[in-house]
């Protein structure tokens, strides 16, 4: 009885697992298939299950962008730039919000949250005008700069929660040891929250990488990022589905690599061994 019960449970678990796999991995596999099959077979009915795979679409996106800029490289520049500009502001801000007695601390945090909640589309026109006025339109920096309105609030929230986890006694011990606040921040707190900084960078990168709204109005032809390029394939001489699919597959790779490499930091305990165990 219990034995059959168990095997029934196991079967159910596997069925649920397969369903989830189909929902999450299915589209990805379908897109990969789309990218490597001849464009004209994309939507034939009934679906054509056998085809001669080719890498033309990837070659086109990577090697022969034609009139399109090297969008993969552009995306990397913008995303990495956004992370690099983000950290020097969000980490000290998070430190201050976590540790110092500041007036209106709660309001600042809520304001950040508000910025995250608001749809970026609402700000597109103002940002476009602003960036054009200061003559930055079409530059990488314009996108990196405007992305900060999303990445900084998010990073501050995330970083603050990491810094909150560091026992205050560690900093008090350092004060008694004779260290000033900047030494404490640089030599005690930040090294301890290094996993947090890495995780925050990861999220900021993915935020910037996935963002399509800002590059849509701020990039030029030569600085267009991957999402913009993908959109471009809808317009020119019919919809080239294999190019779109190849671009989408390529766009998934960097975030995946990042999560695979830094995975251990996401789960690792922060302050193991600092206080009695």
């Amino acid at each position, binding site marked *: 009885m219990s034995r059959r019960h168990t095997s029934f449970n196991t079967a159910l678990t596997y069925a649920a697992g397969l369903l989830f796999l189909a929902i999450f991995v299915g589209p990805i596999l379908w897109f990969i298939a789309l990218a490597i099959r001849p464009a004209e077979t994309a939507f034939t009915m009934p679906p054509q299950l056998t085809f001669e795979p080719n890498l033309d679409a990837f070659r086109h996106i990577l090697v022969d962008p034609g009139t399109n800029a090297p969008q993969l490289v552009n995306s990397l520049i913008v995303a990495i730039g956004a992370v690099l500009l983000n950290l020097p502001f969000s980490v000290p801000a998070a430190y201050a919000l976590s540790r110092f007695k500041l007036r209106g601390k709660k309001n600042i945090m809520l304001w950040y949250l508000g910025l995250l909640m608001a749809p970026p589309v609402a700000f597109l026109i103002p940002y476009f005008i602003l960036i054009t006025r200061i003559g930055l339109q079409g530059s990488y920096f314009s996108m990196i700069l405007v992305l900060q309105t999303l990445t900084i609030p998010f990073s501050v929230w995330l970083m603050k929660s990491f810094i909150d986890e560091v026992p205050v006694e*560690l900093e008090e011990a350092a*004060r008694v040891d004779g260290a000033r606040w900047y030494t404490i921040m640089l030599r005690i707190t930040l090294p301890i929250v290094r996993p947090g900084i890495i995780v925050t960078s990861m999220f900021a990168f993915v935020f910037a990488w996935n963002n399509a709204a800002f590059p849509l109005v701020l990039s030029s032809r030569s600085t267009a990022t991957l999402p913009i390029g993908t959109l471009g394939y809808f317009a020119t001489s019919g919809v080239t589905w294999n190019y779109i699919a190849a671009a989408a597959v390529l766009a998934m790779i960097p975030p995946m690599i990042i999560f695979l490499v830094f995975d251990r930091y996401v789960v690792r305990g922060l302050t193991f061994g600092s206080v*009695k165990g």
Partner: protein
Amino acid sequence: MASMTFDGIGKTFPDGTVAVANVSFSVADGEFVVLVGPSGCGKSTLLRMAAGLETLNSGRLLMDDADVTETEPQDRDIAMVFQNYALYPHMSVYDNMAFGLQQRKMPKDKIDKLVRDAAEMLDLTRYLERKPGALSGGQRQRVAMGRAIVRHPMAFLMDEPLSNLDAKLRVQMRGELKLLNQRLGVTTLYVTHDQVEAMTMGDRVAVLKPVFNGQESNLQQIDTPQMLYDKPTNLFVAGFIGSPAMNFVRVELTAEAGSLKAAVTGTKISFSIPAKATLSAYAGRQVIVGIRPEMFQVCPESEALFNEQVPVAEALGADTFVFFDIASPPVNINDAEDTEDFPNKGKNRLVARIPPALTPRPNQLLPLTVDLEKLHWFDPVTGTAIRD
């Protein structure tokens, strides 16, 4: 090395909690003073004020006669051992100890020598390259000590540094700490809620009590362990110091020719003592008598002051503690009674220490007498000791 003076110190937290009020005492150069008291009596707060981690609402803090009330912790040249050790988790044992010296811009080779000397002294040399996470509780405790002693500070502040260790290690570390203090001769302020630790380690012990307003003082008494035991200044100290605790019994005093008769409230038990000046003033009133467990003696029934059934006896090997009840109202030592309307009913459980050979069988009557000369007397309203 330095002396330390607390001069009318007070601390009220922003939420209105009065943690410390009117605390004044001095720690002499090289002295080991223990702060002891129940949870919430302000021990940690007091220590943190000494470190500069907590601001003062009133009073002054002096080190070697210099006012350091407003001095930042960085500039006080004191070392603190935290209750949870607060070791830097990302640094090796070596760097944990070296950090404080590096802040003082000491040359590298000198730092190296000091760290290695301290590690040697604390038997940590083998662990210098390890991170705190890979150490046992006792080793972490020694690293915390090492981080303090390596700096040769003016004073040590220690907040229950042994409370996370198991009983055996605690006893061992207690001895080592005391030795260390004698060897280094550094002024030490040591917090514990364990009165055995306080008695065994302190040159002097300060007994603290929670306060509820700014008029009282946390500090009940500061004295040598022996003096605290022999001459407690009030009910709180008398009840806190000593294990098992002192017994308190309510008695009605009446004056007789040349003597005072004390009748235990609610019972037929009574005894007489020679008249004494201060105590005689309480004739006709209730007072509280304090009896240490070891002041009881097993005696023939005819001489017995107490002769009660013993429902519980705890044999510890060297001693036996016997517990018995008398039909007398109990005494609450934590609050001085602000009423003249004393209770006269209830049950008061007393404990006596007797030689194991005389341990009674369960519920057997045990005749006990008391050395009347040694009794402690307390005012029932204020709780203050009555002495002649």
